[in-house]
């Protein structure tokens, strides 16, 4: 049985296993129909032209999370940003791990999707927000159909959440192959500010496929900074579907650091539903071997006087492949839009490749929209210059790559994240960089 059939036929059993109230039940039933109709996307689908799911779909995934496998904090500490005080929502093999987590209901809700979907006190938020940003595409629909666990974060108005929130997913290889479908809902009310860090980590060589959906709502003047650290092992694949709806004067930023995984697809969608909104999408991708990273972004400018900034850097070695597909839509009414997009790439090997495609659909006439993409090699004259100063080849290369990624790292607001990313990059390049960037 292929994965699609397996998922569709499992749906009934899944529905029976969870205790649900009517509205979400209907949403799920509709979603599984949508997935059944569409199936997994193939290369015939324009948005998936350069990314094939064939290899990752062929495994016989277990699709229901079993009981949590006990993990000790000491075993996984290194995957946390542990040098800062933070809230933590931790899942092991798709199940919530209370002893690794630190949630709260003190003025803000940092807790679980499973609780939010069942407890009456969250009902209003669920009715107003759940599945209201996610699109009806097949993968998001699939996630919606099986949505049960994930992070639920609600920040009421006028709260600056001092501690960042870390959402971590571990898989321990207790199944020969595991499919995970976390579902996150993040609602940030007027004037509030929150910082979130998300990471997926497989701890063994058993294949893992994660199809994640995150819906984020930033209400009036709210600020959300979201950091995705993608440095999973070579047997783990991730399809990340993130939808952000912004109300007026809100700021939302998503930084995506993609260094690991077998196949990573980031579907990142911003919808600007008000004036004077600022949206920032930044990413650094550094991959090698046969790794594949695909950034598929959308910024929809729906109202006037808004800005969006996209800046993606990619460094590809060996036989790795990258995709950048950046779509910017400016509605007719969205005058005075400023939309910037840049995608710069370095290919370190003849066998590495990148497909980059800016897609601008502009219906307003008084806008500033720019886009640019470059594909190049490492600058040989810069290499000689550095080496002639005594910096060895490997270190010189690393320094150039850091320099190349620097303006993305620059806008990271949490210094510990920046240090961690710098460390991961240095590790990946096998160098010690003797200073903080």
């Amino acid at each position, binding site marked *: 049985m292929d994965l699609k059939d397996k998922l569709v036929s499992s749906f009934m059993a899944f529905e029976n296993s969870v205790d649900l109230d009517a509205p979400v039940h209907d949403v799920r039933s509709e979603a599984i129909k949508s997935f059944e109709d569409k199936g997994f996307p193939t290369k015939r689908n324009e948005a998936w032209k350069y990314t094939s799911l064939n290899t990752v779909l062929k495994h016989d995934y277990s699709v229901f999370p079993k009981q949590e496998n006990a993990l000790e904090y000491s075993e996984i500490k290194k995957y946390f940003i542990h040098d800062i005080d933070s809230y933590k929502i931790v899942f092991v093999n798709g199940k919530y791990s209370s002893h690794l987590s630190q949630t709260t209901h003190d003025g803000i809700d940092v807790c679980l999707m499973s609780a939010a979907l069942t407890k009456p006190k969250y009902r209003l938020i669920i009715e107003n927000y759940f599945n209201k940003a996610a699109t009806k595409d097949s993968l998001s629909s699939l996630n919606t159909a099986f949505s049960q666990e994930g992070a639920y974060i609600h920040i009421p108005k006028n709260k600056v959440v001092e501690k960042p929130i870390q959402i971590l997913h571990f898989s321990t290889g207790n199944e020969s192959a595991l499919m995970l479908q976390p579902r996150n809902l993040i609602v940030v009310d007027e004037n509030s500010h929150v910082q979130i860090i998300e990471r997926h980590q497989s701890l063994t060589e058993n294949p893992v496929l994660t199809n994640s959906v995150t819906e984020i709502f930033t209400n009036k003047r709210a600020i959300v900074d979201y950091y995705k650290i993608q440095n999973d092992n070579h047997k783990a694949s991730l399809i990340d579907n993130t939808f952000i709806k912004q109300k007026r004067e809100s700021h939302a930023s998503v930084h995506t650091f993609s260094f690991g995984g077998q196949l990573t697809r980031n579907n990142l969608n911003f919808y600007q539903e008000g004036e004077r909104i600022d949206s920032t999408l930044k990413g650094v991708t550094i991959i090698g071997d046969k790794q594949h990273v695909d950034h598929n972004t959308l910024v929809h400018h729906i109202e006037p006087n808004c800005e969006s900034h996209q800046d993606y850097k990619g460094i590809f070695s060996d036989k790795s492949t990258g995709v950048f597909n950046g779509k910017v839509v400016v509605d007719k009414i969205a005058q005075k839009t400023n939309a910037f997009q840049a995608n710069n790439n370095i290919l370190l090997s003849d066998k590495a490749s990148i497909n980059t495609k800016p897609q601008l659909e502009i219906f307003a006439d008084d806008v500033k929209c720019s886009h640019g993409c470059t594909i190049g090699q490492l*600058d040989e*004259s*810069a290499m*000689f*210059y*550095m*080496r*002639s*100063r*005594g*910096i*060895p*080849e490997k*270190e*010189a290369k690393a*320094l*150039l790559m*850091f*320099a*190349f*990624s*620097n*303006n993305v790292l620059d806008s990271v607001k949490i210094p510990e994240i920046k240090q961690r990313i710098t460390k991961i990059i240095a590790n990946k390049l096998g160098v010690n*960089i*003797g*200073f903080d*960037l």
Partner: protein
Amino acid sequence: MLKINDLHASVEDKAILRGINLEVKPGEVHAIMGPNGSGKSTLASVVAGKEEYEVDKGEIILNGENIDELAAEERAHKGVFLSFQYPVEIPGVSVTNFMKTAINETRKAKGLDDMPANEMLKMIREKSELLEIDRKFLSRSLNEGFSGGEKKRNEIFQMAMLEPKLAILDETDSGLDIDALRIVANGVNKLKSKDNAVIVITHYQRLLDYIVPDYVHVLYNGRIVKSGTKELAHELEEKGYDWIKEEINA
């Protein structure tokens, strides 16, 4: 210090150096002059270890060791420094971080620990004062948006930081106004000692008024065709290179 024996080098099968012989002793300043395309910059790059150039014949001996096969960074670790004619812009790497990395990598190659931060700062302060470099300048991206003069001053600042045994200044005077020229030359003179040596590559006599050479060599068609003292530079300034070409061709 440096001994070059019958050095032949080419780039993409085009012979550029056709048998260079040169000996530079500690404490000496040598000037290499010559018309465009004579091979001056190539000689500098070959000694510094640029990989595009193929050494076809001959040898480069630094302090008794043949360095032909060494990578550019290894030559740097042994005390070779090249001041670039066109310093490369490296956005995203500050002058300070670049210098820290260069110094600590050189120390690492010598089996030394990193230079303590306070010592590094002190050194940066001293050397930047020597070259009259504003401190703000040091946190800027390396060479990015620098004026011609700033780039060259920055080259000599790097030389001051790295304290090379053999410094090759490739047209350090080009693009400098008279004030910048004086600062740069003054920097080089202060760094000079009986234990190190300087090779100055230049088109013009002008720089040699400030950095006074012990020997002047004329490079033409990939060979050193004439050597002399600083008076030779004056003669070249006055008469140009045509008389030398005629002498050779005769």
